[in-house]
């Protein structure tokens, strides 16, 4: 029994509702929205690829209520803060990119990304902020062409052809 509790986070819907196409659009939309680049160290959502099974899993920060990443941060309060909803935020201007938060993440793969660089100012951890600053909501959800990811606060939609045919895909 897992006693851990989580805040709102990105979930992947069952394949009976929508199968992940493995297109990586979620990773791309995430890093482009936040950093204006595409690169495997910049996305805050992770496509765990099934190279030959072709079944892919989406992994994103679960926003754990006990936030072990925050607890591990040596710059706690500056580089990592808690917002009003108890959600861990990274203030990249203060982040030294030490990677302790990533190591402290209880999930495999870790749900925090890390940009390594010889240039200290470029080193930084990257973590899902649910695109809280975007009026359209999470970029990954918005640009997933098959609507197979959504917010945990929304119940898993039930598939029906009518929903699927709707112009907004039932979102």
């Amino acid at each position: 029994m897992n006693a851990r509790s989580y805040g709102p986070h990105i979930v992947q819907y069952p394949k009976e509702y929508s199968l992940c196409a493995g297109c990586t659009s979620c990773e791309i939309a995430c890093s482009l929205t936040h950093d204006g680049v595409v690169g495997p160290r910049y996305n805050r959502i992770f496509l765990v690829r099934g190279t030959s099974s072709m079944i892919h899993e989406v992994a994103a920060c679960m926003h754990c209520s006990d936030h072990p990443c925050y607890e591990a941060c040596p710059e706690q309060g500056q580089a990592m803060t808690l917002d009003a909803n108890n959600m861990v935020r990274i203030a990249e201007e203060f982040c030294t990119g030490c990677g302790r938060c990533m190591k402290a993440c209880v999930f495999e793969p870790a749900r925090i990304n890390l940009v390594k660089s010889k240039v200290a100012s470029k080193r930084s951890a990257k973590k899902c902020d649910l695109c809280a600053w975007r009026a359209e909501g999470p970029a990954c959800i918005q640009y997933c062409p098959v609507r197979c990811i959504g917010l945990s606060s929304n119940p898993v939609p039930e598939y029906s052809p009518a929903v699927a045919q709707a112009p907004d895909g039932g979102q």
Partner: protein
Amino acid sequence: MEKPATVTAPQTATTAPEILAKVKVERLENSLRYGYVGTILRINLSDFSVSTVATASYVPKYIGGRALANRIFYDEVGPEVGALTPENKIIFMTGPTTATGIPTGGRSVFTGIAANNYPEQYAWSGIGGWFGAEVKFAGYDGFILEGAAPEPAYIFIDDDKVSFFSAAGLWGRLVHDTQATLEAMHGREIKSIVIGPAGENLMRNASITTSNDNVAAKSGFGAVFGAKNLKAISVRGSGVVVPADIKRLFELRLQMCSPAMRPNPVVHEFVHGMDGNQIAVLGGWYRGQVACSHGCNQHCCRLMMDMPSAFSDSETVNQVEKCVGIFAYGFAEDCAWLPIMSWETEQNTLPPCKMLSGEPPAPDLSDPHLPALFAKVPGDIVNYWKPDFHKGSVMMHLCNEYGIDKWDVIVWYFTWLSMAKKEGLLEDMDFGMEVDVENEVFVRYFLDMICYRRGKWGQLFGEGMARATRELGYEKYSRSIYHGRYSQAVPGLQLDLPVSLETAWGMSYHWAGRGYEGSNNKPTWLAVTLMQMTSTRDTQTVAHFHGDYNDLLAIGDDPCHSRILVDDVIMNENKAELKDSVSTCEWQSPDLYWTSMEAEMFTCATGIEITEEELEEAAVRSKLLMRAITMRNHARTRQLEVDSIYPSIIYPDCHGETVTEVEFNDLVDLYYEARGWDQATGWPTRETWERYGLADVAHDMQELGMLP
């Protein structure tokens, strides 16, 4: 089910590989900033050396992808180089849109002297997956592979570290096992391209496979890897690709091919196949749709889930089916054709990605041409093999695991076995087992034989059908007529077809009016034939012909004298160059009613303003470089290409018609004239070379006596 004792079962155990050499790369300063990452790697397998080339020395003039590879190949590889020799180079190139998030940009391309065309010539092969994007994240727009390793090896590119490892522990392994073993050794995040045993054994139809069963199948570059003793290339990159215009990029994501943006449920299907090849599947099967490449906004690939495995009765496999795979299961009837697949109106189009994903746009009923666009022409009855779900799955799985081009297996090897047997041509051949294409045991036996080159027949057929039938006796074993083809367009009409479905350059028919996908109309198959003529391989996988329906009406019943048809062919050819260069995908491009799409993608990625006309000029330049290579390296002339292609269309189309050689030559005249190529020789004039910025090539051609 009986299994051949010789099949190598998937293995899992692995030991740490021996390192043969390790090189640190000095990547070049990237003056290009957006889209490109600035450095091309040159990797020499003979001495394990690595050097770099600046991308900026080629672009934007040579765009990227195939256009850039054509220039490098023209500059570096002269005539007399065989596909399977160390002197052959394989050039892998991404496009400026690769890894930017612009849809379809994830596709990349290989070029080099191909093992599978006949005679061996320079060709290309595209590939999807995540590999191209990862190469860019590692800091390279592409790489040039030279030489041959002294022993089986694989390459691991880890940002600026290039390591050469012994492939002793990988050699012999099947495709998926090789991928899994590399991931076990170097981490799950690596992206790999690998060959299977077919490539190792220099089987000329061998493919190169990456994730999601994406393959570079045409051209037989898997055999070129095998000849270079190269089992795989793995890459891990931690860098970034920076697109110039992110706002526009997000618009393109929702604009290109209008993604439906709706759920993609796994569907429990109870029937497989189309038309006369339908099979009722006991218990059903599960279909999902997946994307082929990094950053795409569509999901065209049909994922067949939990399918019968070739290696175990208790395990199942997932496999991807695109257009040809469906015929592995049943091939009693050829593919049907709807005019809208080739001729569109502004109101009604049917992009291939929409067809394959099962999400065709709703027809616009206000279109007066609607009935004509959907007037289905059924495929010919061919009776190659009855539908068999289990056997079809095994055939697909073996091709995937051995690393063999499914196309030639389904369209050429097995149709030949079926037709040649029915025509009594195989009676004095002892394969060691009765030839029966409807027997799964024989399917396994034959694929195993050609993959591992077992015995006399494995040696022969492992050379590919063009070479095998010539070795056996071309007239008898290739040109004998199969008497089992019946038109459904003209019901009851029996039509001649050669037992070997060969068209020019050692390729098999593809939308050419007869053979596989042969029920299109005369203007369409003439267009396809013309495209094939000036190429070195099947062009249709990157240049399915598309034209406006009003053009078809204007072409009327005299296509061989239609400049409109020629202009449409040239448009499709130029777009094909762009697809492999910008890059984009055959299944989204060309959009006939958004002709600046590729130029907008290019500018969005690179920040370099380019007009549609300027990009078209770059496409023609790429086509001209291909022409220069085929002329200089392969002695291409008008006579050679007309003599190579025309014999493939002497057989009737599904209406019982064809064109005379004189008529076809009239069409060729029109085409050369429109291209600025000399009608007598087929060679571009000085003015043409110079108009497209290739004065140096004109100079070379003059030296060679090839400047008309």
